[in-house]
């Protein structure tokens, strides 16, 4: 939302912004609801990431193409309807491809509509840029979101169930850390990741800056 207008950037920069520098999960801390709710297992996290990326890219492309047509006063309403349309498409697609995934994700597929990352990207980037950079940026953001979800889901699945993508990692003696797959685990694992990033950042500029998230 508070991304300033940059001078023209290369395609690579556009793509990489979302994956690392502005990672939606770890740096901007956006789209928390699906992030925490769905990241119980690596597979769930991965499917959710792909679904969100698809909606993000498609919506940003359409918003960017329509950027001169939509009057300023109704732009948010227009974006929401565009996003809702693509979410409906994804909802039916997932239902057709894998019923198991559809049931695991439940209402959270439809809740992609209110994921602030998508509306934020449409408003802050796609509505001001031509289609190609808009799509690249959306692709990067989607990849960054998927990566963040995966990092969360994998840790929670390994600790909470002793598995990764459903394959058992440890012997039969492993005592699963059940709290990790329950709601509190989501908060704690994400908090720990942020802690790690804060710590790394603080170590990079030793002494200068310790707090990034004001």
């Amino acid at each position, binding site marked *: 939302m508070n991304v300033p207008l940059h001078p023209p950037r290369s395609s690579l920069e556009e793509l990489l912004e979302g994956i690392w520098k502005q990672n939606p999960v770890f740096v901007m*801390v*956006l789209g*928390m*609801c*699906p992030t*925490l*709710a769905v990241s119980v297992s690596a597979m769930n996290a991965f499917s959710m990431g792909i679904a969100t990326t698809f909606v993000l890219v498609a919506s940003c492309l359409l918003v960017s193409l329509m950027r001169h047509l939509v009057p300023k006063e109704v732009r948010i*309403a227009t974006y*929401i*309807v565009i996003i*809702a*349309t693509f*979410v*409906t498409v994804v*909802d*039916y697609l997932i239902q057709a491809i894998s019923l198991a995934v559809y049931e695991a994700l*439940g*209402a959270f597929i*439809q*809740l992609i*509509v*209110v*994921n*602030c990352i998508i*509306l934020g990207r449409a408003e802050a980037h796609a509505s001001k840029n031509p289609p190609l950079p808009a799509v690249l940026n959306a692709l990067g953001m989607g990849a960054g979101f998927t990566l963040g979800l995966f990092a969360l889901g994998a840790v929670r699945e390994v600790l909470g169930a002793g598995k990764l993508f459903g394959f058992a990692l440890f012997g039969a003696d492993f005592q699963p850390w059940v*709290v990790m797959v*329950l*709601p*509190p*685990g*989501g*908060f*704690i694992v*994400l*908090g*720990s990741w*942020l*802690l790690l990033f*804060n*710590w790394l950042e*603080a170590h990079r500029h030793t002494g200068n800056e*310790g*707090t*990034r*998230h*004001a």
Partner: protein
Amino acid sequence: MPESLSSIFIGTLLANNFVLAMFLGLCPFLGVSARLNTALPMGAATTFVMLVASLCAYGLNWLVTALDLQFLRLIAYIVIIASAVQLVEMFLKKNSPVLFRALGIYLPLITTNCAVLGVALFQTAREYSFLQALTFAAAGGAGFTLALTLMAGLRERLNLANVPNVVQGTALSLMLAGLLSLAFMGFAGLGAGE
């Protein structure tokens, strides 16, 4: 098997708390919970919008099913929520300017609160009757307000504590939310399960 109204209420308020167990409405939960005096009006406004949204969603779902247009359901929901928020805003501005000013920017932001859309979607998925849906919305809103208020109280206290620099900010809020969520799991035996 029809769930009783009281079990829906208690279950949604405590055991399946919207914020702490179902992860709905986390953005305002982390954003607005810094101070107690903003937490309460925010919770009240959200509860009100949830009730309106639940009412509209119930009617819409009936209409969409009757016309066999289920694929339009999501779009219809989001449009109705956005217009409901707009209506509430206009109504408050005209009839209670004091409350309107107190809520300020939070009112329009309720549109993108996933807890509101969550109410509409979950009540549809669970095929609640009209009264059940309203109870669900009221309990969801009350649960949201409860979580927001508890969190705000804790964070006001934390401001006085001496915390290492790296832990400050979102990381600490998330850890705190984790502990709160852990505490709320103690209620799991009370209400009806999933």
